[in-house]
């Protein structure tokens, strides 16, 4: 199948997922508004895609620190922007859920605090990038920060909120446990995961292509930077 064919297929797939999410999924009792449960197939797949792209960005950052090849830095930065986008989407869908379920969009519970810090870490990454005009120095500082962030993110988002003593509003153990989701949910959920992951990877590759061209321009002496 050609590239265009794959893209069209992805488009159709996501349409089916969205349509299915709104019409096919049954409301779930136990939520304040039973239909609210449907947001799960948007919130969690976004989070999973964001995690994958975050890991890719960290991987390329580490590779840059070893090989000092600016193309690795381009991929790391592109990964960081896509990851930031998906983390923002995760946060917003989470806030919508929180508003309806608990009457308050922001609660400062451990998971929300952790995601807030994570967003700040990514924003700091772009602040660092903006402060350097030399490509190698920029890449070095940004890569060092990305690796540092890669070390703290798992701690902040998975270890601390799920630590035994922590009280969190965030539901636990829904996705990967046996009785967590009904069959229709499971189908749409994993479909959405595949779809969002596909979109994330596609955006990443486009971003990298554009940034590689910008980098060549910058190295050749044209103005502007990443």
């Amino acid at each position, binding site marked *: 199948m050609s590239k265009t064919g794959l893209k069209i297929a992805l488009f159709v797939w996501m349409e089916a997922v969205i349509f299915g999410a709104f019409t096919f999924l049954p409301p779930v009792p136990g939520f304040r508004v039973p239909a609210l449960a449907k947001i799960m197939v948007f919130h969690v797949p976004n989070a999973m895609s964001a995690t994958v792209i975050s890991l890719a960005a960290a991987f390329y950052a580490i590779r840059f620190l070893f090989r000092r090849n600016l193309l690795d830095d381009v991929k790391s930065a592109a990964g960081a922007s896509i990851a930031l986008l998906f983390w923002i989407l995760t946060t917003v869908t989470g806030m919508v859920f929180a508003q309806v379920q608990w009457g308050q969009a922001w609660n400062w519970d451990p998971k929300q605090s952790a995601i807030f810090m994570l967003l700040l870490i990514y924003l700091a990454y772009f602040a660092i990038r903006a*402060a350097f005009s030399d490509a190698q120095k920029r890449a070095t*500082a940004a890569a*060092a920060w990305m690796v540092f962030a890669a070390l703290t993110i798992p701690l902040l988002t998975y270890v601390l909120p799920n630590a035994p003593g922590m009280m969190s509003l965030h539901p636990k153990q829904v996705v990967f446990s046996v009785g967590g989701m009904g069959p229709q949910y499971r189908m749409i959920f994993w479909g959405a995961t595949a779809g969002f992951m596909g979109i994330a990877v596609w955006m990443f590759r486009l971003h990298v292509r554009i940034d590689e061209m910008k980098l060549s321009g910058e190295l050749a002496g044209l103005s502007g930077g990443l």
Partner: protein
Amino acid sequence: MADDPQSIDARTWFRAAAAVLVKEARVEGRSRLALGATVLFSVCALTAVAYTIGETHLDASVQAALLWVVLLFAAMSGLARPFVREEEMQTADYLRLYARPSAVLTGKLLFNAGVMLVIEVVTAPLFFIVMPSGMVRPDVGLLTAVLALGGLGLASTSTFVAAMIAQASAAGSRGALFFVVAFPALAPLLMASTHATFAAMAPVLSPPGYAANSMVVIASYDAIVIAAGYLLFGSVWSET
């Protein structure tokens, strides 16, 4: 050669680290105002908080939070200096030739830890005197431990972040950039330190295990940040 500072002979490594530390202290001592300015900054921040609160009674948990915010501001105002000054004085390249990166980091980190200690020794007692007391039979030993470990965490993260951004070209914005980049890294430490300080100020009011949990978080934070700093510093410091 054993006396080559770049060698991995332990004795020369220690000498290099000590030399960096002594150099920082001497340069700081020359400009007599610098450390004093940082300490005065933290006193002023403390005063701004305490004065505006006045007689209003605040819970120990709020006071603990305010103490750490004041310490954070003081750290942000003073701890970037070792690296930024190095770049501004244009002695950084010489230092790169002189000593192994880990020795440089150790010297600068110990210096910043010392600065943090001075800040805390002045600010913390003043804080507890000046703020209307929320303390209920405080655990002074725990309080000291929190301030020590939390301060070490503040110093470590600040040192590493300063190293990363010291070469940023937009010199005017380096101060703001330092705070912006350091804050997300410091947030978990702030949280845990505040909780532990609250537990130390009013042990009877805090849930059981609160202090222990928080101290574990602070200790592991320190370990992770220092380890990550040593691993990454070499890449940031050397051009290759």
